[in-house]
């Protein structure tokens, strides 16, 4: 009986050791990943690698949102007519400047 108990205890300890070992590997892997995270690669002067190369500050949000236009309609508004004025479209001309740049390669 005592032998059986000690056998199962040994198995439990082995299992826990394996889990511990796995945990160590995972944690080390996690540490390694964090080291390669670009956010940690910001230099002491506060500039990212890209800013150092180009020596300019690049804003992550270049185009500010326009002031939202609020539409107000009342009972006199012809809704059928109003809805016809909505034409969502992606124009080819939106890409003109980008195409000009691409053509320079």
């Amino acid at each position: 009986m005592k032998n059986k108990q000690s056998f199962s205890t040994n198995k439990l300890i082995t299992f826990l050791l394996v889990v511990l070992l796995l945990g160590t590997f995972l944690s080390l892997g996690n540490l390694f990943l964090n080291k390669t995270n670009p956010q940690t690669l910001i230099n002491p002067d506060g500039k990212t690698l890209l800013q150092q190369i180009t020596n300019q500050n690049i804003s992550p949000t270049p185009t500010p949102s326009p002031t939202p236009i609020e539409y107000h309609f009342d009972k006199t508004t012809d809704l059928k007519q109003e809805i016809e004025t909505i034409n969502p479209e992606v124009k080819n001309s939106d890409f003109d400047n980008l195409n000009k740049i691409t053509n320079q390669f």
Partner: protein
Amino acid sequence: MRKVFLILLILTSLLIGPSVYARTTPEDIQNQTRFNFENNLSKIEDPKKKQLILSADQQLKNINQTVCNRLELDINKLSAIFEELKSRENVTNTIVAYGQGSTPLDTAAYYLNYAAEALAYQRAQDYTPAIGGGNLKSAINYSSNNLKSNLGTLQNKILRAKSEVKKAINAYEK
């Protein structure tokens, strides 16, 4: 023996705990893409090419934001029309699940929300060109085509919302 168990258990939870919470988020992927871009950019020796890539990268962001701003105005107007229609019909609530509204107003509400969410998602997309492959032009073209296609999808979602609001108007305003 119990003490050994306890110590092992505490150590295990200490080590595994942080690993479980360290999941890859969209922000991580975006940061990694940006890091790769910066890294590959530093390897390009020709300053003219480097500048062109930076300009193209900036343009990709600008196009996305500019078109999203324009499409947002369309959604705003569509929402205002929808709200006016609701007030004319004295409807205060719209109940809808998985696009199956019981009234045209419910269905219109669903597709309007769908379009607005798609717009918010599109605004947050990143089109940093993957310049690691060597062919810079095709990397930029790939990002550009991807952006164009995604904006086209968003446009179609707004058109669907417009069509549903139109159906609701036609159903109520006779």
